[in-house]
């Protein structure tokens, strides 16, 4: 549940940023530009996650989320709306610009208390979906070694194809390959390879919209090709810079809920 806002929603929440660079960029530079796309100081949205299993059965999770950048710390809070058994659960994350690990808390209405939880579980799958916390969040740029493999045209769009190999050999992916648009550094597709080097998952960006001047991926699909199940994430009610008070990101609001 760590990094779940939209910039955030996928490694590739990539907003338009035309650099007009003539010189050939390195793999790291391309990924850095994609990571650093502007997403606004504040953001509010509703996230709907549809989990589809191999038989086509669906389960739906709905979350209302808020994010605010305080300079050296970015705070996010999420309120679970459905399904009914997790309703009123809330989750808060404080992410630091420094190397300090995130702080995270969860409020479980049945326990009636806010619990601090470990942020050391970025490889866990989020709410049973096909997205890990790392897939959803801003994985640190230098956690991987990036290499530009080639340039390729996908559906008529010119893309960089970048391979990223984690520095941590025990990481759940042996490598990822990302297709990033040359014109605006928005992600188009990403492949995830398991520890044996076999293709595990494919992330496909289905819809990108410009909202309040920011490009936002409003629909994406992650498919596990080994187990033949997938997750579709859709964002709605996306709003930027609406003046979210700092008091939103407190224990008080976690317990009070929406």
């Amino acid at each position: 549940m760590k990094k779940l806002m939209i910039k955030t929603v996928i490694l590739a929440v990539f907003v338009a940023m035309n650099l007009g660079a003539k010189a050939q960029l390195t793999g790291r530079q391309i990924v850095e530009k994609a990571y650093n796309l502007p997403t606004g100081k504040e953001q509010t949205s509703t996230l709907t996650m549809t989990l589809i299993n191999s038989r086509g059965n669906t389960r739906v999770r709905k979350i209302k989320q808020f994010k605010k950048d305080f300079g050296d710390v970015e705070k996010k809070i999420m309120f679970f709306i459905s399904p009914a058994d997790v309703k009123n659960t809330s989750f808060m994350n404080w992410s630091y610009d420094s190397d300090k690990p995130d702080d995270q808390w969860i409020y479980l209405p049945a326990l009636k208390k806010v619990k601090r939880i470990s942020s050391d579980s970025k490889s866990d799958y989020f709410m049973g979906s096909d997205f890990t916390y790392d897939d959803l969040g801003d994985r640190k740029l230098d956690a991987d070694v990036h290499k530009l493999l080639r340039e390729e045209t996908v559906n008529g769009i010119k893309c960089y194809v970048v391979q990223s190999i984690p520095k941590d050999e025990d990481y759940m992916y042996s490598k990822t390959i990302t297709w990033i648009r040359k014109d605006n550094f928005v992600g188009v597709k990403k492949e995830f390879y398991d520890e044996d080097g076999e293709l595990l998952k494919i992330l496909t960006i289905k819809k990108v919209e410009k909202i309040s001047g920011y490009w936002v991926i409003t629909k994406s699909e992650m498919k596990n090709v080994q187990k033949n199940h997938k997750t579709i994430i859709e964002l709605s009610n996306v709003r930027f810079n609406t003046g979210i008070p700092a008091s939103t990101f407190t224990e008080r609001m976690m317990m009070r809920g929406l």
Partner: protein
Amino acid sequence: MKTKGLFLTMFLVITMLVNAQENVGITGFARTYEGVNLETGDFSIIQQTLNLSFDKRGEKVAFKANPMVYHYNSDSLSFNLREIYADMYFKNFDLRVGKQQIVWGKADGVFITDIVSPLNLTEFLLPDFDEIRIGVVSAKMDYYIGNSTIEAIWIPQFTPTKTPAPNSIWYIKPEFPAPATFDWSKDKINPSLENSEFFLKYSAMTSKIDFDLMGGYTWDDNPTMHVQKHFAIDTTTMPPQPMLTGLTITPEHHRLTVGGASFSTEIKGIILRGEAAYYDGKYFQTTDPKAQDGIVKKNYLHYVVGLDFSIGDLKLSTQFIQQYILDYNDMIYDDEMINTATFLARYDLFRETLHLELFSYIGLTNEDALIRPKITYDFDDGFSILLGANIFVGDENGMFGRYQDNSMVYTKIKYSF
């Protein structure tokens, strides 16, 4: 049964009326719970539950009402208004007035500074914790300063721990050396300003550590048993000896002053938690012949330290708990120290639709345990099927071992809406 039927009818009518109102949220669950005693094959419990929660919230005010209906066996109906309160929101503080459950502290499954809401132990520690806690009629104010909170609570009417009835499988019949009669005249605390309970807590949530400091001027939720012995002279012995012929036992709740603290922090991916409460004067039973009413007042410490961590996808949590009577002497009936541990392992499979869990209380002093494995399958969103067991093992004098005849397997099917 007529009264209960009327109650239920009113309850359903109110539900329909509230449902007809706009903007009142209704959530809750329906649950069936059946348990079978492992030794006898008899049903330990046959329980159907309907839990309804009505919420309405505006910008400045809110209310919640949470009635619950328990249906036992084929004919026994129990209604419980678990919570009903109103909230008022101000810029820097909130007020909550009414019957409410209040939860304090950082420990899981044990109650250290979490002493505001008393416990319903009629089914020992087996129900979910939100069903073990009893709501208290109180006024609570939370004042917020940044990420810190000062919480003040006033409880005008004392509510004691609810214990099992004598016909319950969880009732432990006390043993006396002579026939005992009970005098219940001092068991009740009349609601008054003088008899009110007060609690105060300061809590802070920071990037390095979360911590609470608490204090309470309260009543002991469990009554102290004042024992008066009656003697006769045994003339059959030479010389004649005094002979114990009977006991008068007077349960009485006493005032307690409690101070405590708790913290929670993360160290290299591991959550370290701690919590302690110090009781300034708590009564204990003693065999000291000079002690009045067979009781002695001692200070008492109750604390826990715990860790939460993961090994791969396996989530683990463990706690060490100690109860310690200060200035102890060997005539006190309770042990000087009682050490307990808890252990929790949890593993989720199949995209978090199948959950395996093992939770245990381990009595280190008496070498006994309650082992609680369970498997939960989320058949659909909000619909779960649970198969579990409660295994009591170890020393019959221990808190858990004493219930070894009550080991059971059970199933719960729950639909949340």
